[in-house]
């Protein structure tokens, strides 16, 4: 049992390491992706700059508090790179090359999680560097929590959030087995996820009933709540947030298992 676990762990660690190394082949992409994160900060800087000229606080945020929120949420949303998983699975099912993943001596979803872990590990340092540069460049008085427990909760929530997004994208990808063409749906999903994860504007700006509703959804805990926790807000939501997100991860895993079992036989390896 122990030997099996160690061997399994080694396989996934190797998959993560290979995908981390593969990122080195796309160095220019890394640099440009890092540079273009400025658009989110610039949006916040200009929009909120013009608003805060006429007032000192909006929904409890000061100007620098708001920019700190954007720096952290932009950093976290840059780490969330699982969007490509659904596209990759969908394209491979459609052109009949999904067999590449089926013949791997490991669980397919586990492989994608390991892949995401490798890519995130690679981008972590670069995104951190970019965030530090923007803080310096825009002269932001950066607000960050000093409580280790809140930081630990936020870190755990970020990990669970990343796992949830991999699960979601894996699930959407395998839906190609049933619906054949999901690219339009994936693009709509991207637009909506940007809104409900709070990467465009903090969810605190929405009416209280909307925020209450969003608290029941997992997206609230992917980027928004960790960003709020790290800027020293909403600490009372940390523990319930972790629980809700964990329940969502478990529920989605069940749905993935059922869907995979039901539809995987539809894959015939010749494309659509």
């Amino acid at each position, binding site marked *: 049992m122990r030997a099996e676990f160690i061997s399994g762990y080694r396989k996934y660690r190797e998959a993560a390491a290979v995908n981390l190394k593969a990122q080195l082949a796309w160095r*220019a992409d890394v640099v*440009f992706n890092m540079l*273009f994160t400025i*658009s989110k900060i*610039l*949006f916040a800087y*200009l*929009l909120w*700059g*013009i*608003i805060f000229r*006429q*007032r000192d606080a*909006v*929904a409890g945020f000061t100007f620098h508090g708001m920019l700190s929120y954007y720096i952290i949420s932009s950093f976290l949303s840059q780490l969330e790179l699982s969007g490509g998983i659904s596209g990759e699975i969908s394209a491979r099912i459609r052109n009949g090359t999904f067999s590449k993943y089926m013949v791997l001596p490991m669980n397919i979803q586990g492989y994608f999680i390991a892949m995401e872990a490798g890519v995130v590990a690679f981008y972590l340092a670069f995104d951190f560097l970019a965030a530090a540069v923007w803080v310096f460049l825009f002269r932001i008085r950066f607000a960050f929590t000093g409580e280790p427990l809140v930081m630990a909760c936020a870190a755990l929530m970020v990990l669970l959030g990343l796992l949830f997004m991999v699960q979601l994208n894996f699930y959407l990808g395998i839906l190609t087995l049933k619906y054949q*063409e999901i*690219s*339009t749906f994936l*693009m*709509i999903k991207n*637009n*909506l996820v*940007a*809104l409900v994860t709070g990467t*465009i*504007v903090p969810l605190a*700006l*929405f*009416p209280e009933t909307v925020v209450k509703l969003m608290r029941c959804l997992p997206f609230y805990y992917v980027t928004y709540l960790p960003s709020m926790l790290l800027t020293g807000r909403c600490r009372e939501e940390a523990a319930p947030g972790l629980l809700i997100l964990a329940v969502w991860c478990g529920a989605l895993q069940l749905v993935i298992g059922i869907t995979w079992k039901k539809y995987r036989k539809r894959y015939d390896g010749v494309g659509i």
Partner: protein
Amino acid sequence: MRKRMKKNFRVLRELFRIRFQHLMLFRLGFFGPFFVDGSLFAVQLMVFGAVYSNVDRIGAWGEGEMILFIGTFSLINAVGMAFYFFGIRQVPDKIRGGELDLYLTKPVSPLLRLTFEQINPGSLPLIAMSLCIIGYGARRAGIVPHAEDVLLYLGWLAVMIALHYDMMVLIRSVCFYLVTNARLEQLEDTALELCMKLPGIAFYGIYRIVFCFLLPYGLMATLPVQSILGELKWQTALQGLAVAAAFTGLTACAWKRGLRHYNSASS
């Protein structure tokens, strides 16, 4: 001149007919662009709805003016999506793969054919949706425009659609000289995404130079909205026209010189 226009019109009619036949084969994806871009602008409306539930004005603009801005940007985008976006987007591939040869040998302007051969009628409902947003925005802003205001707005809209088209062609014409324009397209997407969310009134200093003159996406929906609001100063109007004219000239020049530089599949 008249004979040439007549010929071009006949070519366009044939291109539209062929495209319709092709699209009917993939009926499920027909309205795809409408749903994708519709959701994008619906998200924009929700975002600014949330912002305006906490503040009265952004600069000099209230919620109505901002809705008008979002609707106008949506309309420019919708016209592009319906008529030229999918055609122009293929230019880099055609240059790299040497497929442009086929266009050069046809008795019609290659750019005209490339522009209109991938029209997407599935985006037409997006135009209707944008008009509804504009109407709603005008009502919220309390604007009762006169006929001449509407004409002026439409005139600015036409100029800005031309500018949007120029930018698309210009960025893809780079492929006549370089192996890839991927970074420029990334820059285009980033600038467009930013200016779709932020009206030109928010730009100042270096940001104004970048987004109103170098990558003039910041002008696109702002000038038509300012014109209908009666806020457009003649200096700003002249600057806008000069930028549009300069980019049209630059694009025509880049395309013509690019075609001369084109060496079939080895480009």
